[in-house]
């Protein structure tokens, strides 16, 4: 009983509580500082190391014809796998816009749907809505609206009616849009992209490939993607030309631009308008 009284009034519990509080503060500070450059993302890129150019080459083709910006015949292909409900993909949308503005027809930028259906219940519907808009030649308009308004629709229970509003905004034939949103054509395109994503070993979104080489997430900044593109432009540039160095810079696009015209005829008419943007 003496022990009980002693322990009841002792300072021991307060010392323990004090230590725990200090440890908590130190822990929060330490993780918030040291985790800044990579932290969790490092484990993700470690997971993604099995992806090689070989698995990329053997992967299913994805939706045909693919949605792309830039030039069909560009030697550098930038391929993004993204999920409309993923906040990191929303940020990547801005990054990719900068890349496309900088390189234009020097590159071919391909967008692939990879909705993470296990964790993002609205992502698949969003991908289908984008593809349904694509069937009327307005994939990129819808894609842009979905990313820029992600916070609005992703927390709404009636997201489908919001997608319909976007469809109206960009001037789609609403009957066709609502049919396509339920029909097999848009869905099979999303599914084909997802199969390609599985084939190339996507573990997280967004994932960017530059000529088949996956970029680590922390490398997928404007600067990081530019560096990867420049390296590929340099590698694929014809060495006989005097200005092969210039191919690595941003002003070598004029020659490729012309190739874009005939190639647009190879893809479906519905898409060629938006591709040239």
């Amino acid at each position, binding site marked *: 009983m003496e*022990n*009980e*009284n*002693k*322990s*009841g009034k*002792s300072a*021991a*519990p307060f010392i*323990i*509580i004090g230590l*725990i*509080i200090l440890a*908590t503060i130190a*822990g*929060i*500070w*330490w*993780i*918030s*500082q040291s*985790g*800044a*450059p*990579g*932290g*969790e*993302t490092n484990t*993700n890129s470690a997971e993604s190391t099995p992806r090689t150019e070989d698995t990329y080459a053997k992967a299913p083709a994805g939706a045909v014809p693919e949605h792309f910006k830039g030039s069909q015949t560009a030697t550098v292909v930038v391929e993004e796998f993204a*999920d409309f*409900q*993923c*906040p*990191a*993909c929303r*940020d990547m949308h801005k990054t990719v816009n900068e890349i496309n503005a900088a390189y234009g027809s020097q590159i071919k930028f391909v967008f692939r749907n990879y909705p*993470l259906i*296990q*964790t*993002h*219940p*609205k992502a698949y519907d969003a991908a289908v809505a984008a593809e349904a808009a694509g069937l009327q030649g307005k994939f990129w308009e819808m894609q842009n609206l979905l990313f820029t308004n992600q*916070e609005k629709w*992703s*927390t709404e*229970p009636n997201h489908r009616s919001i997608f319909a509003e976007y469809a109206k905004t960009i001037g789609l034939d609403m009957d066709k849009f609502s049919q396509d949103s339920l029909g097999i054509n848009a869905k099979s395109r999303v599914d084909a992209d997802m199969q390609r994503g599985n084939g190339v070993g*996507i*573990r*997280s*979104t*967004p*994932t960017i490939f530059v000529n088949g080489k996956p970029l680590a*997430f922390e490398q997928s900044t404007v600067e990081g993607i530019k560096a990867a593109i420049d390296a590929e432009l340099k590698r694929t540039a014809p060495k006989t030309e005097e200005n092969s160095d210039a191919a690595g810079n941003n002003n070598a696009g004029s020659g490729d631009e012309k190739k874009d015209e005939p190639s647009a005829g190879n893809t479906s008419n519905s898409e060629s308008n938006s591709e040239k943007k």
Partner: protein
Amino acid sequence: MEASEIKQPVKQTATKSSVLAAVVALIGLADSAYLTAKHFNGTKVPCSIVSGCETVLTSSYAEFYGIPTAAFGVLAYLLAFSLALLTAFGSRGLWNLFGALTVIMTAFTLWLIYLQAFVIGAFCQFCLISAATTITLFTIYVISRLAGAKISQ
């Protein structure tokens, strides 16, 4: 462990429960501290195939009045840990306060689960770990009370 030498079974149940509760509260504390750190860190994280954390932690429910939701968890678990520890060291009157706290925490947790399931539409495992520890704390308290009541009858 002088406290466990107490003879009365009621006291013993309360002590054992409070030690267990303190341990569980520490798990919850570590979890919510990690989430708070991630919030302050602000690193952009890619969306993984299996985890919806990014969606949940960047949702409009990740903060209340500018304070990260996880920080409320840190405070609650610190308080729960302190109350459980003090109970274990003999201040048995605090066990009821601990009980009241777990009721509030459980109510908050159920609301957060509802938000993840029906509003945000994504689950985050670290948030679910916290939900599990909170419900465990509540269960420990309820069981200790039921056991205590039986013994004192």
